[in-house]
C-alpha cells in the first residue's frame, strides 16, 4: 500500500509532465493544475500514513544487472518537505489567473517543466541515498533554469538564468564533493546510515565535510554572501516559478541542511559550528531584512524578505537545540505558506495595476479589500506575530538560540522580528492604505477563483497559528528519531 502510494506520488507528476505535450494548449494549465493537485493529495495521504509510524522504505531495482536500485525513504522530516513542496507548487500552478497576461505561459512545455520541478522536489524529499539525492537536487536546477531563461519577465533573463545556474550549481558541486568524499572514505551512500557512518570518520575530515554541506545548502538558502542570485531570479522568474521557488525550493534547502548537517554529524562537531553559523545567520537576517525594507520593487522585496527569513532558519539550525531545529523545520511549512501568500498578493497587484513598484501603488484596500486582508495575514505571519503560523516557528527558533547561552545573539535574533514587522507592514501600508492614487481608481478586486487559493493559504496560516497542536506534534515527531527531541 504505502510503497504503491510512494511510487505514485513521484510518478504522477513525471507522467503528467510528459502527458502535457498531448494536451490542447488552452487546457494545459488546468491539466497541470489537476496533476499537481492529485500529487498533493497523494503526498498528504502518504504523510498521514507515515504520521506517528516508523519510516516507510521502498527499493526498486532500476538497472538490475549493475546493482543500481532506486531507494526511497520517508520519515517525518521528509514528509513535511514533501507535503509543503507539493501543496505549495500545486497552488502556484493552480493560482495563476487564466486571463493573466503578464507573460505567455500558456504553453505546454512551461507547465511540463513546472511538473518536473515539482517531481524533483518530491524526489529530494524521498531520496534514500546520496547519489539519488544529488540527481534530484540537480533535477531541480534544470527546469527552473529553463523556465527562467525562456519565459522570464526581464529582457536580460538569459543572463539572470545563467547567474542563477552558476550560483546554485556551485552550491550543488560543494554538496557533491562532500557526498563523494563520504563515499570514498566509508563506501556509504545511504543517507539514513550517515549517523553511524560519520561517527567513525576522523574529526578533521568531518570539520571540512560539514562546512562543505553548510555552504552547499547555504547557496540555496541565499545565505549571506551567496544571496545575490535570489533578487534577480525572483524579479525575472515567471510568477508561477517564483512562487514554487519561494514555497518549495527554499524548503528543500532547509531540509537538506537539517538532513545532512544537523542530524548525522557528531554533536561535538556540530557544536563547534553553532556559533559561526549563528553569526552568518544574523548577518543574513539583518542584511536581507534591511534590503527588503528599502526595496521598492515588489519582487525584489519578496526575495530579500526570503533571505531574511532564511536567516531565522539558519539561526534555529545553528542553535543545534531541539526547539531551534524544530522551529527551522516548522518554518518549511510556515514560511512557505506566508511567502506564497505574499507572492500571490504581489502577483495580483501586478496583474491588476500593471505596476511593479511599491511607490507606484497606494490606497488599494478600498478597491481590493480581500487581497488587502490576505496581505495583512501574510505580513503578520512573516513578522512572526501570533495568532499566525509564522509565530510558532519563530518563537521556537528564538528559544533554541537562547538555549545556547549567547544572550547577545538571542537578543539580536529576537530584535530581528522588529525589522520583519517593519518591512512586512510597510509593504501593506504603502500598497493598501492611504488615499487611492489617481491612476488606481479603477482597479478592481480579482475574481473569487483567483482569491480562493489565497484565502485557503491565509486560513492555513490562521489555523496553524491558533491550533498548532497537530502540526507541532508532526514536527516534534519528525525530529524525535533524529536524536533531537524537544
Amino acid at each position: 500500500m504505502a510503497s504503491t502510494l510512494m511510487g505514485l506520488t513521484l510518478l504522477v507528476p513525471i507522467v503528467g509532465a510528459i502527458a502535457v505535450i498531448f494536451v490542447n494548449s488552452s487546457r494545459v494549465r488546468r491539466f497541470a493544475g489537476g496533476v499537481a493537485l492529485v500529487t498533493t493529495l497523494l503526498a498528504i495521504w502518504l504523510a498521514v500514513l507515515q504520521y506517528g509510524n516508523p519510516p516507510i522504505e521502498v527499493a526498486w531495482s532500476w538497472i538490475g544487472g549493475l546493482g543500481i536500485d532506486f531507494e526511497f525513504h520517508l520519515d517525518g522530516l521528509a514528509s513535511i518537505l514533501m507535503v509543503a513542496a507539493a501543496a505549495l507548487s500545486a497552488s502556484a500552478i493552480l493560482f495563476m489567473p487564466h486571463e493573466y497576461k503578464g507573460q505567455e505561459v500558456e504553453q505546454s512545455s512551461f507547465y511540463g517543466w513546472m511538473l518536473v520541478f515539482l517531481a524533483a522536489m518530491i524526489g529530494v524529499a524521498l531520496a534514500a541515498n546520496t547519489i539519488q539525492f544529488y540527481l534530484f537536487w540537480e533535477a531541480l536546477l534544470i527546469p527552473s533554469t529553463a523556465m527562467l531563461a525562456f519565459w522570464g519577465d526581464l529582457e536580460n533573463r538569459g543572463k539572470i538564468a545563467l547567474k542563477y545556474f552558476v550560483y546554485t550549481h556551485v552550491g550543488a558541486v560543494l554538496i557533491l564533493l562532500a557526498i563523494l568524499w563520504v563515499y570514498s572514505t566509508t563506501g556509504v551512500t545511504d543517507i539514513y546510515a550517515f549517523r553511524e557512518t560519520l561517527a567513525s570518520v576522523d574529526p578533521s575530515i568531518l570539520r571540512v565535510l560539514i562546512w562543505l554541506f553548510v555552504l552547499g545548502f547555504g547557496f540555496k538558502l541565499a545565505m549571506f554572501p551567496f544571496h545575490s542570485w535570489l533578487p534577480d531570479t525572483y524579479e525575472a522568474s515567471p510568477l508561477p516559478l517564483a512562487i514554487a521557488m519561494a514555497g518549495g525550493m527554499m524548503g528543500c534547502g532547509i531540509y537538506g541542511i537539517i538532513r545532512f548537517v544537523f542530524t548525522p554529524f557528531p554533536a561535538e562537531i556540530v557544536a563547534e559550528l553553532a556559533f559561526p553559523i549563528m553569526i552568518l545567520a544574523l548577518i543574513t537576517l539583518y542584511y536581507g531584512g534591511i534590503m527588503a525594507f528599502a526595496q521598492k520593487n515588489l519582487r525584489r522585496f519578496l526575495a530579500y524578505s526570503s533571505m531574511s527569513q532564511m536567516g531565522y532558519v539558519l539561526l534555529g539550525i545553528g542553535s543545534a537545540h531541539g526547539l531551534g531545529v524544530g522551529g527551522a523545520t516548522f518554518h518549511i511549512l510556515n514560511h512557505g505558506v506566508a511567502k506564497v501568500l505574499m507572492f500571490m498578493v504581489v502577483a495580483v497587484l501586478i496583474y491588476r495595476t500593471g505596476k511593479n513598484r511599491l511607490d507606484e501603488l497606494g490606497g488599494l484596500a478600498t478597491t481590493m479589500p480581500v487581497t488587502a486582508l490576505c496581505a495583512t495575514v501574510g505580513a503578520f505571519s512573516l513578522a512572526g506575530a501570533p495568532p499566525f503560523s509564522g509565530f510558532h516557528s519563530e518563537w521556537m527558533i528564538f528559544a533554541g538560540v537562547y538555549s545556547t547561552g549567547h544572550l547577545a545573539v538571542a537578543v539580536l535574533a529576537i530584535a530581528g522580528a522588529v525589522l520583519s514587522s517593519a518591512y512586512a507592514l510597510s509593504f501593506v501600508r504603502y500598497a493598501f492604505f492611504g488615499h487611492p492614487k489617481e491612476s488606481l481608481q479603477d482597479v478592481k478586486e480579482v475574481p473569487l477563483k483567483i482569491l480562493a487559493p489565497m484565502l485557503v493559504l491565509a486560513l492555513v496560516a490562521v489555523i496553524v497559528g491558533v491550533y498548532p497542536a497537530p502540526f507541532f506534534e508532526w514536527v516534534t515527531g519528525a525530529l524525535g528519531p533524529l536524536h533531537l527531541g524537544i
Partner: protein
Amino acid sequence: MNSYALVLAIPLAGTALMPLAYLGGKKLENLFANIVVFSTAGVALSLIPTIGKGEVTIMEWLPGLVTLTAFNDSLSIFLVLVAACIGALIALYSTEYMAEEKDLLRYWATFTLFVGGMIGLALTSNLLILYVFWEIVGLTSYALIGYYYTDPKGAKAGLKAFLTTRVGDVGLLVGVLALYFGTEPHTFNFFEIADAIAAGQVSSTVLAVAAFGMLVGAVGKSAQAPLHVWLADAMEAPTTISALIHAATMVNAGVYLMARTYPIFSGVPGWADTVLLVGAITAFLTGTLALVEPDLKRVLAYSTVSQLGYMFAAAGAGSILATQFHLINHAIFKALLFLCAGMVIHHVGSRNMYEMGGGVGREMKFTGTCYLIGTLSLCGIPILNGFWSKDLIIGATVEAGNMAGLVLLVLAAVLTVAYSFRAYYLVFCGERKGEHLHDPGIAVKIPLGILAVGALTSWLAVDFITGQGEASGLAIHGMNVGELIHHTISSVAVVYSLVAIGLGLLIYFAVKDTGRAIEKGSPGLFKLLRAGYGFDGFYLAIFHGVRDLGDTALAAIDKYVLEAGVNRGTASFFVGAGKAGRALHPGDVSYNVIGVVTGLLLVIAVMFLAV
C-alpha cells in the same frame, strides 16, 4: 467547559462568526457584537465567586510543552472584569457612535478579538501564552488605530504603535525565555517558576535578565518613557477604541505585568527602583506635554500615559493595592473622559480644542457634567475615586523612601490639574461660538451615566477589592471604607496631594490656558514640548536611517562587491567587446564566479574568527 474557558471562548468565537453577522447587515452586526460582549461580561462577573489562590487548567496548547492555565486571583479577575465590563459599555456606545460607518465587520471583528485577547492576557498563568495574547492585543490595536485606513495618518500611527511596542516585546520574550531556561525542568508556568525562584534554583543573572527584559516589555505596552511615543499618535483610532484599548485596558497590561511579577523580581537589585522611577519620570514628562497640546484626544492620551506612570510607580513601590486600585479607578474615569470627548468631537467635527468654538458645556449639559466628573476624578479631587488611589500611590512612594520619585509624582499631580482644567475650560466653558449642539441619545447616555456614577463611587468598593485581594494571597490587607478614610486622612501623603491640587488650581486660575501662556512666555520651551522633547524625531530618524542603509550601503555591496566581483568598468568593456553572445557572455560568468569565491573567502574568514 468551565467558565474560565467560556469567558475566553465567547469573544473569540464572536470574532470568527462576525462575517456571518455581516451578511445580515449593520443592525445584526451591532446586535450580535453586543450580545457577544455583554455575555462575556456576564460570564466574567460569574468568575468573582471563584477568586482564590490557585490555577485553572483550560486546555493543552502545544502538547507536552505549553498548557493554557489561568490565574484565579483577584489581580487577574479584576482586569478581566475591567476589560469585559468597560468593553460592554463601549460596545453599547459604539452602536450610536459608529452609526455613520458603511459596515462594521472590521470594527466588530477586531473589537471582539481584542476583548478575548485582553481577557486571555489577564488570565493566563503560562508566560508563553501571555506573550501570545500580548501580541494579539497589539495586533488588534494596530488594526483599529488604522481603522480609517484611507487617512495616511492612521496607517502611519498604526505602524508606529506596532513597531514601538514590538521593541518592548523583544524584552518580554527575552524575559520569558530566560525564565524558561532558568528553571529545571524548563517551564513556562508562572507558579512553577515562582516556586523555583523561591527555592533559589534560578541564578541571579537569569533573574536580572528576566526582570529587566519584562520591564522593557511593560514599558512598551504601557507607553512609558522612552517608548511612550506611540500612544498620542494612536488617537487616530475611533474614539471608542481610544477609550477601550488605549485608556482603559490594553495599556494596563504593562502595569499588570509589573504587579504580577513584583513578588518574584522584587529581590533583583535595582529593579523595583527602576520601575518606580520609570513611572515617575513618565508621569511628569508626559504631564508637561499635555500642557501645550491643542488636540483634545492627545491631551487625554498624555494624561493616560501620565496616570500609567503613577501605576508603575506604585508597582515599583511594592504596593499591589495602590496599583490595582488606581488601575480600576483610572479605567473608569478615563473611559468616561474619552467617551464624552468622543461625543463632543463627533458633534463639533474637530479634535483641536481651539477650533471647537468653546461653550460646549452649555449645550451638551449631560456630556459636560460627565466630563467634569471625569476631570475632577483625574485631578484627584476629594472625594472622587481618583483621589483615594492617587493618595495611596503617593503614600506608597513615601514609604518606599524614593525622594526623586515622590517629587516627580507630586509635580505630575500639579500638572494634571493644570492641563485637565485647561482642557475643560477650552472645550466646555464660555459662550458657544460655533453651531448649536445637542446631547447624545440613550445608547450613549447609559454608558456615560454608569461610568460617571462609577467615578464618584468606585472607591466605596475598597472593602470588596481588598477583601478579594487578601483571599487571593496577594500582599493586600483587607480594609473597609472607614479604614480607608482613616488611613488617608492620617497619612502625610494627603498633604502632598492637597498641596499639589492647590498649586494646580493656582496655575489654572492664573493663566487658564497653559498652552498659550507657555507659547507667549517661552517660545523655545513651547517648541520643545510640541516636539515631544525630540523622542519622535529621533525614532523616525532611526526608521529612515535603516531604510537608507539598505538603499545605499548594502545595495552597493550587493551590486559592486558581490554581483560584479570586480568593477563595472571592466565588465562593460567585455560586454561591449562581445555583443554577439551578450546573454551568455563568458565575461559575466567569470565575474559571478569571482563574486562567489570572494564570498567563500568571507565565510572562511568568519569561520576562523569565530572558532
